[in-house]
């Protein structure tokens, strides 16, 4: 089997969320995690990632800003948000400008996320 294992970068400022994401998805995907936007950008420099999933509300750089910055350099990656918020105008705008493909909700739904990554 030479099927390509998707490589996923998950960005969230809550360490528990990072660990749990890894535990849940490491069997199917290569999971890399980052606890902030800037950390995520550093990781993208050295790794070829297929999908980015990012929290929205983070201290240094919010999810939309992170995806927007990353997309300018890495246009082939698919970007998603995973957030506890109802959608906001900022998120709506990011989706309409095709920066972010979709906004997923917390608490997470494993099958929804798997589908998005494999898609």
């Amino acid at each position, binding site marked *: 089997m030479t099927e390509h294992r998707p490589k996923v970068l998950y960005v969230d400022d809550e360490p528990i*969320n990072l660990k749990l994401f890894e535990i849940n998805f490491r069997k199917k995907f290569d999971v890399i995690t980052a606890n902030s936007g800037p950390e995520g950008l550093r990781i993208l420099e050295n790794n070829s990632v297929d999908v980015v999933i990012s929290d929205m509300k983070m201290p240094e750089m919010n999810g939309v800003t992170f995806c927007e910055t990353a997309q300018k350099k890495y246009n082939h990656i698919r970007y998603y948000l995973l957030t506890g918020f109802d959608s906001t105008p900022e998120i709506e705008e990011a989706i309409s400008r095709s920066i972010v493909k979709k906004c997923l909700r917390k608490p997470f739904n494993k099958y929804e996320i798997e589908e998005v990554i494999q898609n």
Partner: protein
Amino acid sequence: MKNTDFEHLYNQLREKYERHEKIIVQAYSSLKKKEQQLKEINANLECKQKELEEINNELYKNNIINQNNNIELSRALSQLKETQSQLVQTEKMASLGILTAGIAHEINNPLNFIMCSHTGLTEFFENSSYKTDNHIKFLLDSLKEGVERTSSIINGLNEFSRNTETTKEECNIHKIIDNCLTILQHTLKHRVIIEKQFYPDNIIISGNSGKLHQVFLNILTNAEQAIENKGNITIKTSITNKNITITIADTGKGIDKAHLKKITDPFFTTKEPGKGTGLGLSITYNIIKEHNGNITFNSEPKMGTEVKITLPIK
């Protein structure tokens, strides 16, 4: 007759005639004078009448201007009241929205911990000898049920922070009412029995979800506040051809006949300061009108109040 006699008679007659003539001339001239005076008086009167008419006209005009001013003033005043009431209510809903959005975010994160852990544990047990253990299955299912229920409450709360102007959203009436009951839960518990007589299917209409939440929150809050000790609130929903009807009846203290007409006026309240601003129903009325619906109140003092809302489905 003698000549002298005749002369005498003639003189007498003549004298008489002359006297009469004099009297007549005098009378005539006096009449003329009177006539002249009358004419003058008449002219004077006409003049006065014209003046009066003019004054009258002016008074009338002033009156109209006054009336117009009054109408304009009272229109401006009611507009001012309306705007003020909208501002206060908007602010109230905004702070409720900010609060609930904040809570939603804070709670959804730890909920995510539980949900992810549940998923991880489920997988772990799937691959272990506990795969068929009923207790483990029950524990895991309960975890999931708890998360899902909490999350749906949180999503309901989020509805209150919506602030859009559209009236084309899909609004699930039963869900909206349930969201409001969730918010009021702590004041209803152990005191007010809620009886739901819902139409068996979902009722979906197109409208503004956030605003319809406000409507039912206002009406249910009034019903709850009208019940002094214990009582019931009955919520009925039904569908006819093109309309839906929602009635919310309480066994509270009712509304005085004299107040019934005023309850939708902005700032009309019988509640003590801090408990009511008198805005709930004026806002509610406006929202129902925006949705091309109707709202009526039926009340019997000391017995209770029934609020009936009709809304078009489309």
